[in-house]
């Protein structure tokens, strides 16, 4: 089946390199009064080709097959205009004159973003594009935004800043790639990630399910989340926002862009700050109070302790945009710092006091992109990032506490006696003060060439080197005895994209080849102050291939198919473990193989003027072999820890012979007159246990049983309504309702109320008001308004009812 699909894709792609005649168009966009329109979007919808006019109103689109088309022009300054054009020669000059728009009529601002979203979503990949424009004005975090998207489940272990696992259609953990502008987000450190990057710094988020495009190739088979930072350099602007809300949460961010139109010099700067005490109330069954004599009271209502989160960061970019030698050339510096208290381990077994992490990262980057480099149709894009990041962990408090911060009392009778200090112990086990420095270099290059219009071939290369240095600050003499790991990755990927049938059929075939090299430096002994080492080097490689197909069967109705076969190589974490996290090494772990298929459709139509409906559905089928999973070790004695009483849960990555996830996701979006926007989406999948035979060689009793601990059914719904001129003329009021539902799921095979993550059903309300000047937007959000008792992970309760207020201020188009 898979070979058939792939070869079909390939044949279609090849057959279409028939040399069709093409021409170019160029011209100028002006208003009625003759004034040129800068930054207008010029669009040939049927070909999905668009461009933006320069400051003089000029535009050019190349490589259009001969024929008749509708040219559509829109901008903030003019009313959208459509014009019929015919391409029948090599160069065609088409000037368009359009009506000026009234200043307050700002609805079409999102024209460009929508086309980009639609273009990607109909490219053939199972991809969802999340736009952040509106969310950035509200009290929403990037993770909340992701969680509302179809097929995405963000599982967070507590309040803001807590560890997160992303689940895309039933695939999770290390199978999901997290990228920032195509570079692994981990390069930017734990202090700059989806937990703290404000939506206002983000242009859009791309969520790829299963099949990844070649520019995101890596060690991922479950999909990827790619965060595209703001790139727009069209208009000078400064925006700032400040918010305050429940649990002493306050945030602020500011960003600005300046571009000199004469020489293209562009400066972009942004900064953010966020703080939350996360001291929300907990009252669920895992909220326990240990009475004197160690009897337990459950459903203990208390404020969540020791969960403070504070993060600050800045991003500065300096360079040139839209100059002769570069479309974009930027040198950037990214700095971030996070402080996070750790209130408990994976579960709420016991509270931790005084355990915390500090993350810091300094990142320099270089970004270069140029279309039509040397020759027409050749484009180059290089993104190089070098980072130094550090992770600091401290846990030196040995006293034993209750969740309310009082000390545990041993005895029920007599004068209360507490457990007292235990030298050398911390909250989770032995006392720890450690620091891990990582140096990461990451370069992603993409060279693509448009052979003829609609046919493009691209070459991608990714280089990554990471190097870590562990320091034991509590026992500094131990530091030099820690094994050093150095990992180098080279991935080559090639793809060929073709557009046929006047752009109605698009295909993309790709192949990937990766080499991973790990070098270990293992200290052996010391003679006269000189340490001798054992060097251990391993080399692994793998390859994968896949393809996508998109066919516009009817106007605005697309059939989308994608398939991929790829491997995941074990990472240094899988192989060497993480002693600081009680993760054991496993030298024998095998690579994981995945074969993914997606078949979907998108259809947008207008049953009547002012009514718009968009439908989306996708079926997915994911097959994993030798899946790498984290297993809890149960051995009576664990190698290297013979004398340790295993009070701490120790885990290890191992292979599970086969897994399968089959499911369906869908979304319906209804828009009325640009006022009402209602959306419902759901994702349902079966993650099945596929081990055929048990240790006796008999058919496995659990074959085809639903694998526990996967949130397999989620529904999101939201409604937004826009009131105009409601309090003041020229003002805009948006009201929002959002609801999220996650079906209950068991965390172990046995059905038990104690090991079931109960139904999560939340309702959020929000409103944002844009003052008539257009510069100030105020938002109010109420989350979990019914104060639902919600859990995500192993009984860790999440925040109840909460309120937030936010003010945004924007200055546009200053000179």
């Amino acid at each position, binding site marked *: 089946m898979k070979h058939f699909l792939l070869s079909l894709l390939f044949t279609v792609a090849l057959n279409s390199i028939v040399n069709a005649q093409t021409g170019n168009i160029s011209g100028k966009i002006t208003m009625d009064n003759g004034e040129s329109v800068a930054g207008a979007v010029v669009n040939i919808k049927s070909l999905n080709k668009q461009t933006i006019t320069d400051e003089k109103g000029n535009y050019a689109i190349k490589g259009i097959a001969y024929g008749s088309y509708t040219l559509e022009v829109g901008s903030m300054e003019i009313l959208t205009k459509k014009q019929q054009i015919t391409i029948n020669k090599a160069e065609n000059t088409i000037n368009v004159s359009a009506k000026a728009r009234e200043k307050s009529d700002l609805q079409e601002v999102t024209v460009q973003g929508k086309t980009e979203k639609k273009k990607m979503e109909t490219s053939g990949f199972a991809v969802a594009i999340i736009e952040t424009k509106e969310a950035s004005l509200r009290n929403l975090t990037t993770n909340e935004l992701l969680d509302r998207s179809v097929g995405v489940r963000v599982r967070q272990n507590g309040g803001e800043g807590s560890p997160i696992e992303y689940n895309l259609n039933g695939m999770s953990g290390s199978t999901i790639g997290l990228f920032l502008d195509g570079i692994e987000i981990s390069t930017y450190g734990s202090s700059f990630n989806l937990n703290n990057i404000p939506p206002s710094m983000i242009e859009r988020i791309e969520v790829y399910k299963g099949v990844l495009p070649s520019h995101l190739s890596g060690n991922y088979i479950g999909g990827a989340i790619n965060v595209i930072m703001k790139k727009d350099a069209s208009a000078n602007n400064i925006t700032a926002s400040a918010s305050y809300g429940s649990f002493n949460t306050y945030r602020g961010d500011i960003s600005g862009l300046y571009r000199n139109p004469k020489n293209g010099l562009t400066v972009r700067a942004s900064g953010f700050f966020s703080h939350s005490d996360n001291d929300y109330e907990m009252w669920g*069954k*895992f909220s*326990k109070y*240990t009475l004197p*004599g*160690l*009897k*337990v009271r*459950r*459903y203990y209502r208390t404020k969540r302790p020791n969960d403070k989160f504070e993060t600050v960061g800045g991003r500065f970019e300096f360079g040139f945009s839209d100059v002769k030698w570069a479309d974009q050339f930027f040198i950037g510096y990214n700095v971030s710092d996070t402080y996070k208290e750790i209130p408990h381990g994976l*579960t709420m*077994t016991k509270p931790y006091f005084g355990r915390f992490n500090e993350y810091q990262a300094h990142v320099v980057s270089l970004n270069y992109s140029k279309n039509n480099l040397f020759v027409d149709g050749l484009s180059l894009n290089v993104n190089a990032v070098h980072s130094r990041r550090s992770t600091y962990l401290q846990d030196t408090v040995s006293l*034993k506490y209750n969740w309310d911060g009082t000390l545990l009392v*041993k005895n029920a009778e007599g004068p209360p006696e507490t*457990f007292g200090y235990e030298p050398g112990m911390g909250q989770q086990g032995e006392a720890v003060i450690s620091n891990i420095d990582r140096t990461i270099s990451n370069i992603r290059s993409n060279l693509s060439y448009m052979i003829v219009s609609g046919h493009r071939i691209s070459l991608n290369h990714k280089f990554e080197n990471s190097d870590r240095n562990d320091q*034991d600050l509590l*026992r500094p003499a*131990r530091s*030099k*005895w*820690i*094994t050093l790991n150095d990992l180098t990755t080279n991935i080559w990927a090639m793809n060929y994209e073709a557009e046929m049938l006047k752009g109605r059929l698009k295909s993309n075939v790709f192949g990937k080849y990766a080499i991973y090299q790990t070098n270990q430096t293992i*200290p052996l002994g*010391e003679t006269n102050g000189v340490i001798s080492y054992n060097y251990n080097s391993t080399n692994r490689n793998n390859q994968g291939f896949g393809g996508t197909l998109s066919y516009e069967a009817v106007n605005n109705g697309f059939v989308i198919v994608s398939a991929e076969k790829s491997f995941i190589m074990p990472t240094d974490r899988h192989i060497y473990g993480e*002693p*600081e996290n009680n993760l054991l090494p496993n030298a024998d772990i095998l690579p994981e193989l995945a074969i993914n298929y997606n078949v979907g459709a998108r259809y947008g139509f207008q*049953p009547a003027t002012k009514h718009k409906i968009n439908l989306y559905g996708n079926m997915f089928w994911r097959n994993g072999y030798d899946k790498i*999973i984290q*297993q*809890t070790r149960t051995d009576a004695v664990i190698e290297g820890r013979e*004398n*340790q*009483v295993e*009070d*701490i849960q120790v885990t290890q990555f191992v292979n*599970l012979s086969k897994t399968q996830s089959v499911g369906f996701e869908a979304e319906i979006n*209804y828009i009325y007159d640009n006022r009402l926007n*209602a959306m*419902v989406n759901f994702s349902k999948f079966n993650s099945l*246990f596929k081990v055929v035979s*048990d*240790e*006796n060689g008999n058919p496995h*009793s*659990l074959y085809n049983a639903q*694998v526990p601990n996967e949130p397999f059914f989620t529904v999101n*719904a939201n*409604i937004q309504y826009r009131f105009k001129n409601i309090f003041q003329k020229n003002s805009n009021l948006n009201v929002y309702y959002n*609801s999220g539902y996650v079906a209950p799921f068991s965390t*172990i*095979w*046995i059905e038990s*109320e*104690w*090991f079931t993550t109960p139904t999560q*059903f939340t*309702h959020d309300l929000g409103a944002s008001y844009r003052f008539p000047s257009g510069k100030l937007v105020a938002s109010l959000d109420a989350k979990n308004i019914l104060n639902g008792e919600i859990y995500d992970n*192993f*009984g*860790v309760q999440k925040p109840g009812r909460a309120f937030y207020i936010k003010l945004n201020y924007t200055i546009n188009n200053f000179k």
Partner: protein
Amino acid sequence: MRTSFIKTALFGSVLAFSALTGCKKSGDSGEIPVSGPDVWERKFITLTGAFPDAETATAGNGGTMAYAITLAEAANPNFEVNVFSQGYGLRSQRTARVQGSINGNFLYNIQYTGADGGIFNKYKVEGQKNFIDTREEVNTEPILGTSPRWVVAAEGIGVGVSASTKVKTVDNKEGAGAIFENITSTAKIAVINLNDPRVSRQAEFTIPFTEAQTKDGYQIGRIDMPILNAAKTKLFIGCNLSRTDVTKPSTVNNSGAQTWSSAASTLGTVTLVVDYPSLANPKLIYSTQSNFGNNGYRTMIQHLGTDGHIYQGTGVNTTGQPHILRLDKNTNEYDNTYLFDLKTALGASNNVAIRAWRYIKDGIGLVMYTETGVNGGYLALINLTTRTATKLTNVENQTEAGFSGLTAAQNGGTALTGTFSQFQNIGIAGDNFYVPMTPNGLDGNLYIVNYKTGVVTKGAKLKNQSGSFYLGAY
């Protein structure tokens, strides 16, 4: 289209309404369940079974199911039990050590890891899948950690224990090449009142080795299987005695922590003794008859005889041994004239390992054992007075490898965990032993052994599933 909007709005309000009404809190029903000591006649035999875990389907690692049957049902080979589909899930994310009261009317467990790791629970047995969680919970985690080792040390008294060690090097040197100087072993004990669940007493102390012994590398890193003597004045705790090779300098693991070579111990089997109920005056006593560890694994290996002596099996973790030792009731020391050796008693040519055993009356016990190099799990009645043993041959399936287990190499790549190494409890009712016999992943039967006549009766049929086995009878 307006209707569509109305529908959407209706949907939203239905969602909201159902959330409002569905939010009722469960759990605190207010009624006080029957608890206290086990003062009733025996009505049931409870069978427990271990599930595989969720992520990897690792055998016997994903929680415990329980199902209670009557004595008549237990003796009926046509009666079928499937604890996995019919049973009640005891609260523990991973398979926990379950203990029972004397007449089987209560079960106790302490949850092993997970959100409630270290929490003690008590259940009243009401037949079939009906177990009443008495909700008398005790948090043993501050003393015993989230994966505690505990047993019923005497009827109504549970004891949990924990031990740890700390090495001192010359000049406190870190890393490889450090020279051993001394080692300290620490023990923690928590006494749990099972009749009115709470921690009634606790203690922490340094295990009293002599200075010469610790400098020689002797240490106890794990203790388990506490038992009280008949007079309830002394608590005897099994120990995993080990010894660092003090002549060899340290090496390091990946995280830079020191690791040490070990040397053979010549002290003999050792038991830690403390006064009860004070938990004071810790003392180590040594056996000259055996040199194996005696901290056991999943099942109680020390039993109080009707003669007042304590009989102590040997074996550490999953490794069983053939010896049973005697702790004298008069001196509270080892009776170093006494040794029961199962290998000798059976006249076996290979070494044999006691995986679980239970004392009933009159010096008679039932032993579940495996034999080196032989697949299968076997039963024998032993007479501790005459030091003789009789292998029970009337057990079907006993040669199955699923009892003794196979390594990955022996089993074509996937290790087969043996039921016997995980076994938790042999049931006793009247003159009979109750032993569920299911190889890993295969069906089996409950076997009833009359200690007086030695007659083996095949009882209820036990349906099994992959990666699972029946763990015990209570």
